[in-house]
């Protein structure tokens, strides 16, 4: 335990002694992870908004009136009963002519010229929510076969699909960015640690002289890298969270698109990013250390001249 505290103390002392280099590494991790985390948040915003669209009705089938156009009485209920049995369908809601009129009035509220119509011309409809949005084509096709009861079929699925495609592209882009930027963070930390170990090569030689094992020498540097990674990641998460919540506040009245992301999301992903920062720091340190400790097994690099 005392050895562990000694190593932690060594790491903290080293961090204090090389503030400028450490600040550089933290900044590099901060920039890399801010971009990656920012991409993740944008992706989440898109996902949330796509979900909001998906929560609504996916397919609307407008129906011919019963007792007209060859539609027998009870045909609407028969259709509802059948559609409810379809595997692709989650829920079916019936809108009779009265519901249609109420909805029409709500939509065109205040537009008196549009409201001056005969309500009986509005068709009844069924509103269908699908299990998966991908099923919209087959459901539309099956509904169109239900003649004469079905007059027309409308679907919002195409628009949702486009959003989903955009979200997928962003997913791939975000992941790619996270990988590339994460790797650059690792390389930057590796360079920082290499600089740090180079600056302290005499010290490392003395450590070897008194019998310090490679791991004993490595641990303070690993802790240094880990602290740099975690600090950079924490700054990145905090900055993106702050920016995102400020933006959400500023655009609260914006109805079409929601920009707010839940704190739960930030907590979950923030924690993962902190872990990633720590891991990037450790891997970077190991990379930075590996060559030096392999090459400098002995203490003799600066042993006094003389054969």
């Amino acid at each position, binding site marked *: 335990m*005392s*050895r562990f505290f*000694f190593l932690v103390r060594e790491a903290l*002392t080293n961090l204090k*002694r090389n503030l400028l280099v450490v600040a550089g590494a933290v900044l590099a991790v901060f920039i890399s992870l801010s971009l990656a985390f920012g991409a993740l948040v944008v992706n989440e915003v898109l996902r949330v908004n796509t979900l909001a669209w998906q929560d609504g009705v996916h397919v609307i089938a407008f129906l011919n009136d019963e007792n007209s156009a060859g539609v027998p009485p009870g045909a609407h209920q028969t259709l509802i009963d059948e559609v409810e049995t379809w595997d692709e369908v989650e829920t079916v809601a019936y809108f009779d002519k009265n519901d249609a009129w109420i909805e029409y009035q709500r939509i065109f509220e205040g537009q008196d010229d549009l409201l001056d119509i005969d309500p009986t011309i509005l068709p009844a409809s069924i509103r269908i929510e699908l299990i998966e949005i991908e099923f919209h084509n087959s459901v539309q096709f099956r509904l169109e076969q239900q003649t004469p009861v079905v007059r027309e079929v409308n679907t919002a699925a195409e628009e949702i699909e486009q959003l989903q495609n955009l979200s997928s592209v962003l997913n791939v882009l975000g992941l790619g960015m996270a990988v590339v930027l994460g790797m650059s963070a690792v390389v930057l930390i590796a360079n920082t640690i290499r600089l740090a170990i180079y600056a302290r090569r*005499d*010290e490392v*030689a*003395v*450590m*070897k*002289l*008194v*019998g*310090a*094992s*490679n791991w*004993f020498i490595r641990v303070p540097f690993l802790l240094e890298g880990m602290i740099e990674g975690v600090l950079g990641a924490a700054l990145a998460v905090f900055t993106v969270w702050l920016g995102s919540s400020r933006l959400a506040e500023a655009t609260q009245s914006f109805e079409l698109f929601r920009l707010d992301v839940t704190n739960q999301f930030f907590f979950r992903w923030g924690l993962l990013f902190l872990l990633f920062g720590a891991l990037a720091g450790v891997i970077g340190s190991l990379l930075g250390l590996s060559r030096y400790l392999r090459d400098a*097994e*002995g*203490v*003799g690099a*600066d*042993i*006094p001249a*003389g*054969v």
Partner: protein
Amino acid sequence: MIRLENVTKVYEGGTVAANNVSLDIQKGEFVFLVGESGSGKSTLIRLMLRDEPVTRGTIWVAGKDITTLPKWKIPYLRRSVGTVFQDYKLLPNKTVTENVAFALEVLGRPASAIKPQVEQVLDLVGLADKGERYPRQLSGGEQQRVSVARSFVNRPPIVLCDEPTGNLDPKTSVGIMKLLDRINRTGTTIVMATHDHAIVDAMKRRVVALEDGSVTRDEQAAGYERRPEE
């Protein structure tokens, strides 16, 4: 305690730094390695510390063949061998106490055990009142005393010294030699490379002379009386 059997060291480029050297150093001995610059003194010290691999031959330190020692075991060898160098090799950002304690921290000793051991050895080298100073605040002689204290703090059976008085004036050198003599009297084997004939003559101990990597003389000084285990 230390045995070299037909040890040869040839550096890249063909320089022969040790040529078929055989030596047997007993527990508690104080041995000087003397010779001109380039005679191979420092190389022998480095070979005994496994800082350099031998080209041919075998070296035994404290009963172990260190020429076949795997790399990961080298630190364990160095924990049983104290070292003192001409340039002190102190950590500039640590105080005297921290520098000496460092050798014990490496061993994983608890803080409660480190403190008294460090105090004791600083007292031995006459620096008990300078524990909180940094190396830059000390004279050359005092820095070398810290180095000696660090080499001895964990009571190793062997201390290797490479020109420990090389940077010091004659009076300070005498002080360091007295210190090494005191350590030797505790039964610690000391091997010291030096080209300071005055010191060698004054100490009257075993002298191994080297020339171009070969041993040209190995004799006990007249008047030497071995006093191990005192």
